[in-house]
């Protein structure tokens, strides 16, 4: 079998794919922003002393992490309307993606917070710092240094999971490539290009995360 690669076709579809890439990036960034905030709330809720809350959150996180993302996307989009919740593909997709990754990020945050030595909490108490200042000024900066590598992994992870949004019709990169393929009966070029575009985004992102981690550690004085 010959590899039938057509450069003219590849070039012709590239602008359309690059336009869809914007949507992919947007989906990843919005999803990640939701996951970062929600994940932090989940991580803090697990530290709260409200009886029962800790257990409920733990089970929720376990549940979300143990079921497929695609199922969660379908669930929010197709089951929602039965309860009177009609969401556009984008909104449903962002909720599902954000919720899914918030559970993973909450574990990263939790590990980061747990890695801060107990003596740091005790020093905060001995200095009579408020709970708010203890977290914001002392614990979070140190926890962040531990959490950044894991957070970076999930940033790349969420980017690579955005194609799943195509199943509910979010017009991101995968969706566009699939449409091009079925219109022209050619799948080699669009899917190859999609792969290359993901590669060109993922690799620098991972590198940037490593750079950021180093700069953060130096900035915090944890490393010289």
């Amino acid at each position, binding site marked *: 079998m010959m590899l039938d690669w057509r450069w003219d076709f590849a070039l012709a579809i590239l602008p359309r794919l690059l336009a869809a890439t914007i949507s992919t990036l947007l989906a990843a960034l919005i999803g990640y922003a939701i996951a970062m905030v929600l994940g932090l709330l989940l991580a803090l809720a697990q530290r709260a002393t409200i009886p029962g809350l800790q257990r409920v959150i733990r089970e929720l996180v376990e549940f979300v992490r143990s079921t497929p993302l695609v199922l969660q996307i379908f669930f929010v989009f197709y089951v929602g309307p039965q309860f009177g919740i009609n969401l556009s593909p984008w909104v449903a997709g962002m909720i599902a993606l954000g919720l899914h990754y918030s559970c993973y990020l909450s574990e990263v945050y939790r590990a980061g917070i747990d890695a801060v*030595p107990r003596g740091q909490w005790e020093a905060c108490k*001995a200095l009579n710092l408020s709970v708010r200042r203890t977290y914001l000024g002392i614990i979070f900066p140190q926890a962040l240094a531990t959490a950044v590598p894991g957070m970076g992994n999930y940033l790349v992870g969420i980017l690579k999971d955005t194609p799943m949004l195509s199943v509910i019709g979010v017009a991101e990169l995968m969706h566009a490539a699939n449409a091009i393929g079925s219109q022209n009966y050619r799948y080699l070029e669009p899917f190859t290009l999609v792969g290359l575009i993901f590669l060109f985004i993922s690799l620098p992102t991972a590198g940037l995360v490593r750079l950021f981690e180093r700069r953060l550690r130096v900035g915090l*004085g944890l490393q*010289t």
Partner: protein
Amino acid sequence: MTGVAYPLELEPTDRPMVRFMNVSKSYGDLKVIKHLDFDVAEGEMVSIIGPSGSGKTTVLRTLMTLETINEGVIYVDGKPLSHMPRNGVLVPADERHQRRIRSSIGMCFQQFNLFPHMTAIQNCMEGPVQVLGLSRQEARERSEELLTMVGMIDKRDQHPSRLSGGQQQRVAIARALAMRPKVMLFDEVTSALDPEVIGEVTGVIRKLVAEHNLTMIMVTHQMGFARDISDRVCFFYGGSIEEQAAPQALFGNPQRDRTRQFLSAVKEAV
């Protein structure tokens, strides 16, 4: 709280800086402090010695509210710390009450516990700015003064990772003093240090004793140091005070067998 009457506040005529009244503390089945009665007068320097597991560190930790007590009441400057008055009786203190009372207590730890992402002077300024509400300028002046006192002013802009253990501990002492506490607690502050730098930390504490009228409680394994600077030495055994006296009396002429055994065992080790 049965059988013993705990006053809502100590009488002005009988008001030590710190009073442990019938205090017990256990971890599960293990009782680490047993019905402890322990007073420290204003301006007094008290050393606590004793074998490991005798509850000596726990005494400091309960006073810093790092541990809650199971029985009895702790008073600081006449006011209850572990409890608070409500409708004429003492109930376990809430966080707000503890925060108010413990503002008069400062503590230095065996492992220093400086904030690693802050420089020496930032460590010292943190409490005054965030808790006492001082301006950054006032906090900086106060911190510089204290860093000078502990001999660390030329390292003021270094992060803890660039400082030796002895230097970190001296910054930690300055950081605690910046809060102007009435009571300072030293929890084995030289135990994690290399022998050759212990002197720089004990030197700072000597200076504090000589120049300030601070109330201090120190848990230590440095018997010579405790003997030199203490007004009183308490020998802890099994969660309570086995024997206490002026240092010359306790080290020179211990009355109890356990004290004698402990002191001779410590002497062997040196």
